[in-house]
């Protein structure tokens, strides 16, 4: 933390000397834009730097090291857990200018990109080769691939194509000393990609990603099944997933969400159903036809009130646009929403949703539910008015209780948004002291001084964690 004005002035002077004044932002008005993400906390940095290339990133890290100040890497600021907020001030590196797609290797189905490329921009560029990028968080038109990697983002299609960790084939990163290093999936040595992806900027700063591309399927069908309740929709999902059907996305929305979405987008969702299941199947034409026959049978078996398949690409895209815009559509019901992110084993989804509804009722907070049902990944949306202190406190308490409920069901506290600042204290409910200490061994290797994104992921008590002691728990206890 920089205390004195003189120290701040020296830091800014050195940053300008290292990368040029046109890359450095220092006025309060400018810095206000780099002090928040999609979580609630706001804290401005003392400097924001917008490098053009990896060499400048190294130079910035060296300046930070010389001044002993923290660095927070920032993509588009769509993160929901406060991971991009510079809690301790210091420097924010924005990747807004490092947004070039370096290469698309169609033959080998991979792309090299800078971290500031928006997720959807890669798929758009790859489309000319008949390729696309798998992970698709709902914020994909804005959210950057660097940020996606930091949180191990997934999206609706992670069910079929995996989250970021399964789709990153290489990374170039700058370490805490400003040295650049490249790691590829096939390299000998420990799997640093596996650890860096999802590390939320606490280990290194990524300056380039090599990503796996997939063939655009030749046939795609999107259908909408209406159910009386989420339980029946979830049962249908379990059977679809277990039945070797070429489903590529399985999304549930409850009545509250469907009504808001329909009022906003008029995509044709049935507004009277208790839950709607959006099903995408993709593959070869014969697979899709086969899958749709099976789907019709399965949803009927589980009591679907209706099933309808989109008849055109435009209708299909409309259904997806409205699903991905669901959170925003809830603005019709309340001025603010808080989206929770948790995962449970798929068959426990009905119990998890029942718990969510009970918790929301107890705290007198209206909720809507969107669920990546194929993955057991819940996103309860807690609706409130931030001008009302009671509601704000109730949302915080309810959000926390939802995480406890999901942990009790064998789940975890984030499926794709990460831990950031928001859930750092909750992490110790999922992992014991030894587990956290083991993670910290890795952090000690990369960043012993805790200069990269301090105050994130790890509970504050971890600052005091010392060498772990053996426990007595059996392997399958």
């Amino acid at each position, binding site marked *: 933390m920089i205390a004195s004005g003189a120290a701040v002035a020296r830091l800014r002077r050195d940053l300008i000397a290292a990368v040029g004044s046109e890359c450095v932002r220092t006025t309060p008005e400018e810095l206000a834009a780099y002090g928040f993400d999609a979580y609630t906390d706001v804290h401005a940095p003392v400097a924001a730097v917008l490098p053009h290339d990896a060499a400048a990133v190294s130079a910035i890290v060296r300046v930070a090291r010389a001044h002993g100040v923290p660095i927070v890497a920032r993509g588009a600021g769509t993160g929901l857990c406060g991971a991009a907020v510079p809690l301790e001030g210091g420097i924010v590196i924005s990747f807004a200018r490092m947004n070039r797609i370096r290469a698309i*290797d169609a*033959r080998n189905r991979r792309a090299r990109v800078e971290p500031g490329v928006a997720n959807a921009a890669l798929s758009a560029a790859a489309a000319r080769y008949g390729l696309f990028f798998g992970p698709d968080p709902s914020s994909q038109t804005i959210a950057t691939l660097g940020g996606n990697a930091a949180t*191990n*983002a997934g999206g609706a299609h992670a069910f079929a194509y995996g*989250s970021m*960790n*399964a789709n990153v084939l290489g990374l170039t990163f700058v370490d805490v000393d400003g040295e650049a*290093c*490249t*790691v590829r999936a*096939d*390299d*000998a*040595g*420990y*799997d*640093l990609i*596996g*650890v860096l992806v*999802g*590390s939320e900027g606490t280990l290194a700063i990524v300056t380039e990603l090599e990503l796996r591309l997939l063939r655009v399927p030749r046939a795609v069908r999107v259908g909408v099944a209406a159910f009386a309740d989420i339980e029946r929709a979830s049962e249908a999902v379990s059977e679809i*997933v*277990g039945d*070797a059907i*070429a489903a590529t996305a399985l999304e549930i929305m409850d009545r509250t969400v469907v009504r808001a979405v329909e009022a906003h987008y008029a995509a044709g969702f049935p507004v009277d159903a208790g839950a709607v299941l959006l099903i995408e199947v993709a593959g*070869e034409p*014969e*697979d899709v*036809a086969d899958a749709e026959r099976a789907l019709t049978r399965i949803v009927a078996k589980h009591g679907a009130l209706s099933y309808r398949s989109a008849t055109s690409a435009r209708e299909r895209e409309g259904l997806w646009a409205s699903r991905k815009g669901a959170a925003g559509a809830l603005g019709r019901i309340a001025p603010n929403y808080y989206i929770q*992110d948790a*995962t449970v*084993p*798929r068959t426990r989804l009905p119990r998890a949703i029942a718990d969510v509804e009970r918790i929301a009722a107890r705290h007198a907070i209206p909720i809507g539910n969107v669920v990546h049902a194929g*993955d*057991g990944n819940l996103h309860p949306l807690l609706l409130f008015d931030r001008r009302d202190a009671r509601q704000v406190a109730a949302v915080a308490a309810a959000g926390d209780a939802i995480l406890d409920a999901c942990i009790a069901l*064998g*789940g*975890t506290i*984030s*499926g794709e*948004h990460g831990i950031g600042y928001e859930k750092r204290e909750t992490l110790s409910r*999922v*992992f014991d002291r*030894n*587990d*956290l200490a*083991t*993670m910290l*061994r*890795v952090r*000690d*290797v*990369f960043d012993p001084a805790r200069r990269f994104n301090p105050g994130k992921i790890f509970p504050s008590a971890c600052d005091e964690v010392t060498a*772990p002691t*053996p*426990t*007595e728990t*059996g*392997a*399958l206890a």
Partner: protein
Amino acid sequence: MTAAQFAIGGRVPSAVHAPASVDALQTLLRECDRRERAVVFFGGGTHQGIGGVPARYDDAIVLTNLSRTIVEDARDLTIAAEGGCTIGALSAALAEHGQFVPFDVPLAHLATVGGTLAAGWLGPRRAAYGRPRDFTLGTHVVLADGTLAHAGGMVVKNSTGYDLSKLYVGSLGTLAAIVRANFRTVPLPRARRIAIAALPERSRSRACANVAALSREPSAALVFRGFTGEVDGDEGSEGRAFLLFEGSEAFVEQAVREVRSALGSAGVPATRLIDREVPAVFARALDAYASAIASRSATLRSYGLPSDSHVRVDACERVAADCELACETIEDLRTGDVVARVSAATEAAFAERVLAFDGARRTALGSARFVDAPAAVRGALDVWGAPPETLAATRAIKARFDPNGTLAPGRFVAGV
């Protein structure tokens, strides 16, 4: 169990242990760590050809007593398995529920979950389904100092802290013993068929290009040159395509029609289809990856882009010929892997020539790794090839996890 059975590269441990529980393993490791005794973990021993000869080796720790599997609710499509459970047993447990995990490991009846993950084994179907690491949802490990630590969980989508399971996969037992792993599973395909075709040299490149362009992609697309004793079919002394198609009945039927046409138009005379006992035929093809010829062969594995796999096959053959070694290869058209088995008629001739081969291969195949070599020569080979850029981080992680160098010292890349 005799100590000699657990020798690696001619180095024999002084003791062999088979802990009956995780608790016992923790106690044992704590003691070894305290007394500065170097240990190597063993499952079925099928991957012990990978890596260097341990710099020190006092105790072999066999983990096959930890062999249970747990399926809480098959509809979750997840399974937990202890580290000593064989891949064969795991696959059998999953098959009861119509599920599988595409480990694609040779000698599945011997290879264990812990060993397969530790070895970082990568099979041919990973292009279609993902790598074993991508199926690994969580792990329980025992660290060098006896600490039991957990990573990940039992859910299929997880962004909760560092995913340390990824660190243990491929670490060759140098960071921890994997005592339990949780996996995502997938439903077994409804239909499977294998297409085998001889590839005359004149048709080879066009046939491979046509296979790469198939709209209905095979789950595995291999070209074997040699391995006539191991892989089904006697077609093609110059090489044969081995293509596995999996999916719905309709998909497989169409795929087979498409591949026949694609190979035919490349001048491949005939494509034979196998539709019975497909898993067994595929398993035998996988066994070829680990098949050695007495003590007169070594196996080199090269990872790279699918677009240049043929270049690496040619390089292996050229360098082997220069060193008077016979060369058989497996070229994976989907992943880009190349596996080359080089051999000689006698042990003595082989020992001399493989060292020359190792020296000569560094230009064309610098990052390729030996995954099997006879004990007599293993210590003299550069088994890991050129070190990665991340070597410093790898060394630092090893030092932080295993400061006393208790776990398989010297087995990993660059002697880590």
